């Protein structure tokens, strides 16, 4: 179980990690980076799957369905948008 101070420690360390990882990114990559981090929080899809999985009433199932739908959209949309942008930064072949 992740709780109490263990949770707090994880939260703190992850927060510092995020800060450090980003601090050396050049301006030209800011938009792809924002898009990329937007994709990373698409991991919410695994939580949404569990939420819908153990939903019982019709209302819970409806909300759970919306959760999975939105989360999948976040993950896939974020991924495709990021890759499309980054492809433009690839060195041109034969140029």
């Amino acid at each position: 179980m992740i709780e109490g101070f263990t949770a707090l420690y994880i939260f703190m360390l992850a927060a510092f990690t995020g800060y450090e990882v980003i601090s050396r990114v050049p301006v030209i990559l800011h938009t792809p980076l924002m898009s990329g981090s937007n994709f990373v929080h698409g991991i919410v899809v695994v939580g949404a799957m569990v939420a819908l999985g153990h939903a019982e009433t019709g209302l819970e199932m409806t909300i759970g369905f919306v959760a999975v739908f939105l989360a999948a959209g976040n993950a896939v949309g974020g991924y495709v948008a990021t890759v499309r942008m980054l492809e433009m930064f690839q060195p041109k072949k034969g140029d």
Partner: protein
Amino acid sequence: MDMLIEIVYFISAIVFIVGLKQMSSPVTARQGIVWAGIAMAIATFVTFGDPAVYAHGSMNVILIVIAIVAGSIIAYITAKRVEMTDMPQMIAIYNGMGGGAAAAIAAVELVKVAGGAEAPNTTVLTLATLGAIIGAVSFSGSAIAFAKLQGLINKTLRLPMHMVINLVIFAAMLVLGGMMAFTGEIDPTMLLIFFVLTIIFGIMFTLPIGGADMPVVISLFNALTGLAVAFEGFLLQNAAMIIAGTVVGSSGTLLTQLMAKAMNRPISNVLFSSFGSDGGGADEEVEGSMKEVQAPDAAIMMAYASKVIIIPGYGMAVAQAQHKLAELTKVLEARGVEVKYAIHPVAGRMPGHMNVLLAEAGIDYDRIYDLEDINPEFPSSEVALVIGANDVVNPVARSNPDSPIYGMPILDADRAQNCIVIKRGRGAGFSGIENHLFYADNTQMLYGDGQKMVGELVAGVKDLG
């Protein structure tokens, strides 16, 4: 099976962090996102092995598959089709979807408690409720940001006593959430009002913010969604969500700070006061007059220069002039002219927006310079070509302490020997502030559509043989 899931989540968390790290260089960036994508696909796949997914029968599993497929297809098609110029609003909408998902996860659990299920302990319930608030605000706020950038909402709406209304909604939202979290007793009606309030707050919060400030807002909502995902991760005891969400939360906060800093405005100022409303009052008389130039003459100036610095702004994106600019770069370099691009940190509607568009047109990123690197070079360049940029080259930011943009770092286009400004009309910029650069002695105005005018410049340079 549980062990396998834990291991996969653990590895995913590492890959996400390494992937973001790889995005700090243009060379490894694509590799980073591809690895993160693979990690997320595997994490999603193994989650089907989680007993919690089967807790309520196969109907739910079928619904999960349908929802994933439907969400993926719609997002895939829209992300593939969208024009590069419209990318900011699409990122806003995908981000909003993530926030909505986090809020919906909280909603499922809270509805369960309302229906008589045992409430989790107060700490977890508090985090879940906070995640619901943050996620729902990010959801509706991002939707408004999308509508604004897409041009569906043109005005900055500001009700009388807007701040007071927002504060009241905010307080009511917190009180309701606090009551649910601390008592653990949830009434369905109360829950409904709670979620309606959070969604209204997101709308009301974003409506008065002008389009020029949207980069900061999208960045902020991105960080908020990350935080909401992390909080729901605590609710579901899911380490991958906690770590990935928190990393995005903190990195997004940093990015938001960088953006606001580039505009030299505190974040609170961006969020709580709209630009146009307090500006304008400090207008002083502008000396000099605007001088018009024709494209062939401007082309000659550039063709015989040794160094040309091009300053693109949002107007370039609107006019879709980046491909013509790439062509202009090519013909100028063929004549031995050194061509550099100067990008202001807040040019466009997102940080790095201009860079993406220029890269799309095939302009190498080593030709593109940040503000600090390029400013010393203006005095030694014969021509600065401003296309669709306005406030970021307004020297008033340096000279007039009464101006609303005073103190904002600007590109010193006025210090180039000559300045050519391509502009559609004679109006003021996004902020409504007169641009003194346009009246300067060494500035000449080239009126017309950006794409058409750059096309004429290309033709003009070519005509010189």
